[in-house]
Every structure is written in structure tokens, then in C-alpha cells.
């Protein structure tokens, strides 16, 4: 107690009020999530009180657990499928577009840049409404459901890929490719042998980011869902949060959380390896926080 008082009164330390404020913020930000994960391991049926420990809501309970309730399991696979496919389509499209927007100096480049970043500032409800009406009234050959959701996810993901890759391209500069071409490389060779290896960390980061925003997405998935069979995890949470009778919904949300944690751990590890291979300082988290990937 006296130690704490002395720390509080020490005029030379770091600003104590701000330090406490930051700690309280961190607790406020993280503790509710930990509680939600905690309830998913409840032995009882409550979603608001801790009741022992078990994994019954994950796979043991015969009809109600995440694994045995077809609607919950379906949502899990729908989310993972959409995120994987969105990643595989959006990243190549976005990388090519980022290259083009950064290096292309001709007429139309400015408006192309403006248009391709516009989805990032468009509220999701606008994009959800727009795509919903489009698939219902104009492109009627695209049925609502997985295909429509995938098209939507890719559309809003491309802009994020552009931002990440463009940031990296701008900091690399055009000199390496110019040097390669002076030494006799064709444009395609310069791109493949010089630029692509330099872009690997940014491509990796884009894959991660697209996966994460696709898995987290709610509005587009909800607007473009056909019926219960194409609901994703966030849509399921939205539909059941206020009425859910058991902690199985918490378990479903927690599974996604664990998957995200695993993916981040892999990505940070790979990012560090890639950086070390190039002899750079490895500080993935700080790079992400400062948005200089």
C-alpha cells in the first residue's frame, strides 16, 4: 500500500493518471471478451453466470453444441468457406490493381485511384443495400446465398489490399525495377524477379486482413444471405444473441476467436521470418499499429 502511494506521488515517473487510465481502458476492452469465452466453457446452461467448467457446448451436448447443432456448424463452415475464397480472389485482384494504381501515370489514373478506394469509406449498409437490390433486380442469374456473399466480400476487400500493397510499393520506390531493367531484365522479369519478392510481406498481410474482415463481416453477409443455410457466424450471433438459450452461441463465437488467434500467430511468425531473411528489424505488431506494412 505504501509502495503504491509512493509510486503515485513520485513526480519523476511516467504520468500516473494516464497510466491508470490506459490500464482501465485495456481491462474494459478485453475483460468482457474473456468473460464471453469463459461462459462458453460453462457446465450449466447460463450465459451470464460462471457455472463450473466443461466443453459440453463445444462438442459433447448431443443436439445443442456447436458441433452437433447443424445450424451452428453450418454457420461455422459458411464463414470459413467465404473467408478463404474471398482471400484467394481479392488478393490477386487487389495486388494487380495496387501495382497499376501506383505505377500508372497516364490519363484516368487519378479517378481510377479514387473509385477503387471508395468502397472503404462507403458505409456497409449502403453497399449491402446496393448489392442486394442488384442481385434481386439486375443480375438475377446470381442467386442470393454463398455466391452473392462471396462477390460482396471480395468487393469490399479489394480496397484494403490496395491500401496495404500501395503503402509498401510507395516506400520501395521505382529504383529497384529500373536498375533491373538497366541490367537487361524485361518488364515482366523485373516484376517477377525484383518487385514480387519485395512485396511478399505486404501480400501476406493482405491475405490475413482479407481473411479477418471477411470473417468479421456482418452487414453484407446478412443482406445477401438466402436463408438460414447461408448464415455466417456473425449473422447467427445477431439472430440469436438476445434469445439464445444456452452458451453454445458463446462457444461458436469463441471458436472463431481461437481461429483468428491461430491465424495471427501464424501470420506474425511468417512476417518475422520473411523480415529476418531480408535482414530487417522484426516488429510486426508495431508495423501493423502504424499501418506501414
Amino acid at each position: 500500500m505504501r509502495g503504491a502511494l509512493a509510486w503515485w506521488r513520485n513526480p519523476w515517473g511516467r504520468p500516473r493518471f494516464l497510466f491508470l487510465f490506459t490500464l482501465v481502458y485495456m481491462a474494459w476492452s478485453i475483460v468482457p471478451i474473456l468473460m464471453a469465452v469463459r461462459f462458453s466453457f460453462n457446465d450449466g446452461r447460463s450465459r451470464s453466470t460462471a457455472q463450473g467448467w466443461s466443453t459440453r457446448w463445444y462438442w459433447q451436448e448431443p443436439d445443442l453444441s456447436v458441433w452437433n447443432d447443424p445450424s451452428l456448424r453450418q454457420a461455422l463452415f459458411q464463414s470459413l468457406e467465404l473467408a478463404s475464397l474471398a482471400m484467394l480472389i481479392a488478393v490477386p485482384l487487389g495486388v494487380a490493381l495496387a501495382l497499376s494504381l501506383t505505377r500508372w501515370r497516364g490519363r484516368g489514373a487519378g479517378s481510377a485511384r479514387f473509385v477503387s478506394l471508395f468502397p472503404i469509406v462507403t458505409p456497409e449498409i449502403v453497399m449491402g443495400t446496393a448489392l442486394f437490390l442488384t442481385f434481386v433486380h439486375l443480375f438475377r442469374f446470381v442467386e442470393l446465398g454463398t455466391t452473392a456473399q462471396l462477390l460482396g466480400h471480395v468487393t469490399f476487400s479489394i480496397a484494403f489490399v490496395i491500401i496495404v500493397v500501395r503503402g509498401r510499393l510507395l516506400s520501395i520506390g521505382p529504383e529497384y525495377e529500373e536498375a533491373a531493367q538497366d541490367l537487361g531484365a524485361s518488364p515482366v522479369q523485373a516484376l517477377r524477379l525484383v518487385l514480387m519478392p519485395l512485396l511478399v510481406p505486404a501480400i501476406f498481410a493482405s491475405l490475413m486482413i482479407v481473411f479477418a474482415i471477411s470473417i468479421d463481416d456482418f452487414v453484407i453477409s446478412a443482406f445477401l444471405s438466402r436463408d438460414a443455410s447461408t448464415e455466417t457466424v456473425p449473422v447467427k450471433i445477431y439472430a440469436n444473441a438476445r434469445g439464445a438459450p444456452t452458451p453454445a452461441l458463446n462457444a461458436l463465437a469463441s471458436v472463431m476467436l481461437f481461429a483468428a488467434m491461430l491465424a495471427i500467430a501464424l501470420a506474425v511468425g511468417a512476417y518475422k521470418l520473411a523480415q529476418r531473411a531480408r535482414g530487417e528489424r522484426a516488429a510486426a505488431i508495431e508495423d501493423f499499429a502504424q499501418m506501414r506494412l
Partner: protein
Amino acid sequence: MRYPRWFWAAFGAPGLLWIGVLFLVPLYVILAVAMGTVDPIFLSPVPVWNPLDWSTTAFEQIIEGLGPGEQFFVVFVRTFVYVALALALSLAIGYPVAYFIARHGGRFKGLLLVGLVAPFWISYLMRMLAWVNLLQDEGYVNRALMALELLDTPRNWLDGRASTVILGLVYGYVPFLILPLYAALDRIPRDLLEAARDLGASSAQAFRRVTLPLSKPGILAGSVIIALPMFGDYYTPDLLSGSPRTNIIGNQINLYIHGPQVTVGAALTVVLMLLLVVLMVYYLASMARSARELGP
């Protein structure tokens, strides 16, 4: 440049085509539905593709509803009040945190940044679900407040309270504000502050005249980037209140688009887009500016 002139433009073609067909065309579809007609028998919307034949019935209905005390007036005012309060609270919470980590993070900086970044990887809906759990009648918020004798009986926090919805918005969006704030504050060179102090400024003066003005771009960009999704939100009020008393513009759009009057929903979406277009263009311009600072 030794690349052929068409080289880079060709690279962008597939992506631009995608954005054209699945972003620009759909925006036009909203207009065509909003200014379209309604099938007299099925009451389903019939989009009108030719601008010369557009009708403004749906917009007239919205303008009528915008009279003082009318349905849309109440919802629009409520939306602005909620977003303004949530934004102010987010700044009051976010700025000190970003400032502390950027300036005084010290050896805990890495750990603190992990804490800042963590909410990015956790689904927004899960973060709301966590609060639905905690705010139940027999949940831990009520129990803590009763243990502290601040409440006598459990309070139903989830039955349509503006305060719950606004705090929910703050909880949901504040991480997206803190990160740009942190990036802006972290970029401020320390020499400038040392110079200010050497020239006789108190630490409060140095903050007010050096740190605060230099972090202004971060404050503006961060505020815009969280205000935009707040204006289009409908799930936070649905999950944390579920009552028409806390309906905001997003709730109305969601109800109309999935209800019988789709044209009104489309028209509301157009109105929302028009209200926000200034913020959107501002943010894109500030992004272009920081890209120019980075590159050639």
C-alpha cells in the same frame, strides 16, 4: 520508365472491371429502385433504368416524414445525437490512451499495442454478444453495481436505453479511432517538444501548441473513419436494445429494404449517402495526401 505505356493500365483492368460491375453499377441500381415505380398488384419495386422516367414519390414521402416531430425527423435527429455523443466519448477515451502509449509506452509498448490491436481481430458481433451476456438481469454488471450498493434491484439494461446503445457504439468503434490517433501521435518528433520546453513552454503549453495541432490530422481522420460506420449501424441498437425507441437511420433502412416499401428503403439509402459524401471525400483526400508524402 521503360515499361510500355499500356503495361500498368492493363494490370488494373480486372480489378477496375470488378469494382465497376459490383460497386458502381449497384450504386446506380439503388437510384433506379429509389426513383422507380411499385408494381400495383404485388407491391414489389420495379426499378426504372432510364433517368428521364424517374419518379420522386419515395423522396417526397421521406421529405414529408422529415417535418418536426414526424417519423424520419425523430430518427435522423436521434442518429445525429447518438453519433455525436459516441464520437465525443470515443475521443475522450481514445486520445489519452493513444497519447500515453505513443509517448510513454516504454518497455510495455509492444504489449500495450497488442491490447490495442486485439479488438481488430475479434468479431464486432462477438464483442456486442459479450455485453449482452454481462448486461443480463442476473449478469455481472448488475451484481457488481448491487454489491457496491449503487443499485437496489437489478436493472434491465437491454430494454431500449439510449445510454446502453451509445456506450455500445463507443465500445465497438473506439479501437478504430485509437489506432490512427496513435499513428499520428507517434510520428510527432520529440525534438519539437524539447524545443518548445527549452523555449519556456510549460508542459501544458507544449501539449496545447505543439502536440495537439500536430495530431489534428489523426483526430479528424480517426473521427471520420468511425463516424461513417456509426451512421450506417443498425445491429448495435438491435442487439443492445431491440426497441423502436432507439432506432437510427440504419434500422429504418434495414426495416424498409426487407419490408413492403423497398423504394422508401432505397431512397433512405440515397439520402444517407448524400449526407455522408462530404465525410467520405474528406477521408479519401486525406489518404491521398499521406500517400503523396510517402511516395514519389
